[in-house]
């Protein structure tokens, strides 16, 4: 089956990032339609389409937009989250670099809907190429009158600003992102208050992911029924799945929500190199609980993965073959979260540090049997107790790895060394 491309239709076309290309294929025709609608009508349309946030949590976008009090005395902001830093995720970067105007049109429609006149696009510091493309796209949109004063003679004004990060995963967390734009450390804020009440510079703010916003013009143009007919109930539309790790054809695949994980790996990823088999899969970015080889019949949508104790997250799928040491995998992830913890919460700051240390000990053959349960205990302590979800994002995959691959941990302890021949996580081809 070919992909079902909506957002990715033109990514392989030369100059697909330019406004000329976008307009030549019907771009910026949703905007006048939206400007002719009442904000409540747009919210209803997005709700009816069933669009759920593509940034990780799957929160219904129409509902989120509805949280904004549009007659607020203070300015209202919309921030586009282009921080994409979740390990295993590389979908937003393609939209940013190859077809950014659909996202920009989504931002303009979103701002009109929530009565915002200023929007920030927060792009991570490690995307210099993407930043250049977005700067160009914003400039083009001003030149054509899609941004600035009195957009398309509607009386609606909007300015869009690109904000470049400087290296910190935690700035992808929505309130860490706000702190960063305010010129501070990206330390997430306790919630409530939620950003829709008190967000950027103390003003009502909506934060949406790049892919979420890119869906918006397509929904306005083709209608909510069209969008909700794709996918499965409550999980509608297409999703850009990222496939990486030990597969023959890694890459991005846009498919309806609810595709079977096994089909994604076998049909689109063309299976595992070297005639190997799957040992484990991280289905939704590294913060999702890991699935084992006997769970591959699961469908890739928000609700099915949640029911299985994992999450769709960013739908960045990392495949690990049967030669992979799962203790090393857990160690690699713990290192990431230890590196990226902002340090505000003791459970997270010390938990991530301690998990990495324990896992390193076990990997090096210095662990004891009772340490395995201590790992689980540490993960338990980190869950649901911190300011933001980074601690959960570390605990969930590690807990699932210890539970589902416990025998590997035991073998490390029993042998007093790593039982795998290879001394690295992977091979270099």
């Amino acid at each position: 089956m070919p992909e079902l491309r909506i957002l990715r239709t033109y990514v392989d076309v030369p100059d697909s990032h330019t406004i000329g290309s976008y307009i030549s294929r019907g771009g910026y025709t949703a905007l006048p339609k939206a400007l002719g609608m009442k904000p409540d009508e747009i919210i209803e349309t997005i709700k009816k389409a069933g669009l759920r946030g593509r940034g990780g949590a799957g929160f219904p976008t129409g509902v989120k937009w509805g949280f904004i009090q549009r007659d607020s005395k203070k300015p209202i902001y919309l921030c586009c989250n282009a921080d994409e830093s979740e390990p295993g995720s590389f979908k937003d970067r393609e939209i940013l670099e190859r077809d950014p105007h659909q996202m920009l049109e989504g931002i303009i429609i979103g701002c009109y809907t929530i009565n915002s006149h200023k929007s920030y696009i927060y792009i991570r510091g490690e995307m210099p190429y993407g930043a250049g493309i977005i700067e160009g796209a914003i400039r083009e949109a001003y030149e054509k009158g899609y941004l600035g004063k009195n957009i398309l003679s509607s009386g609606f004004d909007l300015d869009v600003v690109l904000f470049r990060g400087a290296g910190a995963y935690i700035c992808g967390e929505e309130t860490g992102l706000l702190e960063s734009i305010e010129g501070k450390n990206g330390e997430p804020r306790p919630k409530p208050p939620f950003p829709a009440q008190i967000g950027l510079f103390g003003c009502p703010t909506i934060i949406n992911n790049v892919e979420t916003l890119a869906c918006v013009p397509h929904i306005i143009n083709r209608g909510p029924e069209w969008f909700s007919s794709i996918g499965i109930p409550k999980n509608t539309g297409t999703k850009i799945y990222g496939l990486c790790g030990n597969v023959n054809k890694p890459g991005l695949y846009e498919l309806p929500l609810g595709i079977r994980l096994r089909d994604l790996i076998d049909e689109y990823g063309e299976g595992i190199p070297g005639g190997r088999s799957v040992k484990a899969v991280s289905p939704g970015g590294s913060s999702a609980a890991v699935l084992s080889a006997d769970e591959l019949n699961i469908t890739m949508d928000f609700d099915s993965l949640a029911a299985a104790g994992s999450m769709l997250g960013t739908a960045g799928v990392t495949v690990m073959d049967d030669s992979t040491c799962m203790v090393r995998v857990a160690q690699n992830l713990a290192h990431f979260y230890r590196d990226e913890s902002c340090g505000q919460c003791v459970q997270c700051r010390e938990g991530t540090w301690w998990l990495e240390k324990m896992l390193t000990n076990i990997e090096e053959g210095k662990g004891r049997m009772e340490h395995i349960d201590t790992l689980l205990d540490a993960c338990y302590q980190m869950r649901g107790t911190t300011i933001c979800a980074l601690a959960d994002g570390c605990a969930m995959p590690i807990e699932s790895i210890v539970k589902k691959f416990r025998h590997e941990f035991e073998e490390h302890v029993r042998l007093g060394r790593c039982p795998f021949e290879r001394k690295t996580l992977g091979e270099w081809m």
Partner: protein
Amino acid sequence: MPFTDSLRERIDLIVSGSETRQSALIPVLREIQNEFGYLSNESMEETARILGIPPSSVQNVATFYTMFFRKPVGEHVIWLCRTLSCALRGAEHVEHYMCERLGVKTGGTTTDGKITLMEAECLASCGTAPVMLVDDKLEENLTKEKVDRLIEGLRKG
């Protein structure tokens, strides 16, 4: 290193476009690092003065974000991804190989001052792993040959 007039102009432009003086900080630090390659204590103090914010706040932010350097680095900076998807495709080998070729440990700078090798977390390019960011350019699907070629180019450039 005093700020040149042109740098001052660029900073003023950022400040005038920012909603608060504090919110100009990260773009201003980026600009200063572009100019000098790193953020010296003097530049940070000067930044605090220009923005009218406490020096500690500048120090704080310069320490929090990994892309800000507080010591001089090489002419070129390589950010090699170490995270899971790249590791599954050999990132540890790439790192080892690069350290050997450059004669540095990760975090270090070659003796000729040309190249600094840094470890990065996931660069949002897992589908073309292993990858690294070389200055402003993402280099994907790294092979030994590609790494050799890139290092050669940087040494000459």
